[in-house]
């Protein structure tokens, strides 16, 4: 049952990320990759909160559903590095470097924030 719920919540996380990307692309077509950064930051923040809030043995299932399912679906590693790789090939070096460096830094900040809120 947990496996099914993880899959369903993973799908929900992916759809939320897509809606982020869709809404940003609709209003600002050139700034699309930043929606992925925002989704990664939000997902990492929720993961930080959940990982340090749900620590009891009774919370294992909910923890797995939220962390592996929803947060895993909301965040993406593939696009976070594939897009900068393609951008540098198209000679957008500054943009690619900014994406590669800011994503981990912003996500670290959000994870620590989530962790702090959980305590």
């Amino acid at each position, binding site marked *: 049952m947990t496996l099914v719920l993880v899959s369903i919540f993973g799908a929900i996380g992916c759809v939320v990320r897509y809606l982020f990307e869709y809404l940003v692309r609709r209003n600002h077509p050139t700034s699309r990759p930043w929606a992925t950064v925002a989704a990664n930051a939000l997902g990492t923040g929720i993961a930080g909160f959940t990982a340090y809030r749900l620590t009891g043995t009774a919370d294992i299932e909910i923890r797995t559903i939220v*962390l592996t399912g929803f947060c895993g679906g909301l965040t993406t590693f*593939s696009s976070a590095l594939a897009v900068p790789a393609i951008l540098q090939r198209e000679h957008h070096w500054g943009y690619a470097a900014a994406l590669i460096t800011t994503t981990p830094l912003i996500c670290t900040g959000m994870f620590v924030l989530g962790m702090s809120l959980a305590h």
Partner: protein
Amino acid sequence: MRSHITLSPKQLGLAMLFVAIGGAAGTLIRDLALKINLYVVPRGTAIYPSPDWTHQIPWVLLAINTFGVFVATDLLRHRLKHHDPNDPTRLLLVTGFLGGLTSYSGLFVDLAAIWHLTIGGCLLVAAGAIVSGLFAGMLGLGRHRRRA
């Protein structure tokens, strides 16, 4: 669906369905793969978090993430290069499946576990994850260059 930046409610619903199907499959495979225990505890011994930080390295997730970057780069740069971001194939494979298969948040949760054991080890694994991802991206681009 390809030429429109703004989708009608029906098109948006269909796009979300494609993302959800791919995302559910990707998340399911990642969850199953993460159940692989590389460090099998011998029978009869107590299960406890290993004090050895190297046992906390998320090898499976690192492999999944690296593979995901390689495939995504190859798809976006070559096979789906001229496909609109709302193209069903791109939504199903890149936004949905690969997005669900790979995880940035899962990596941070694993890095936090290593951080409590060794800060240097945590930074080393974090750097390794980024560098291996970049390397996979370059491989994906190179694959395209050989074909072109």
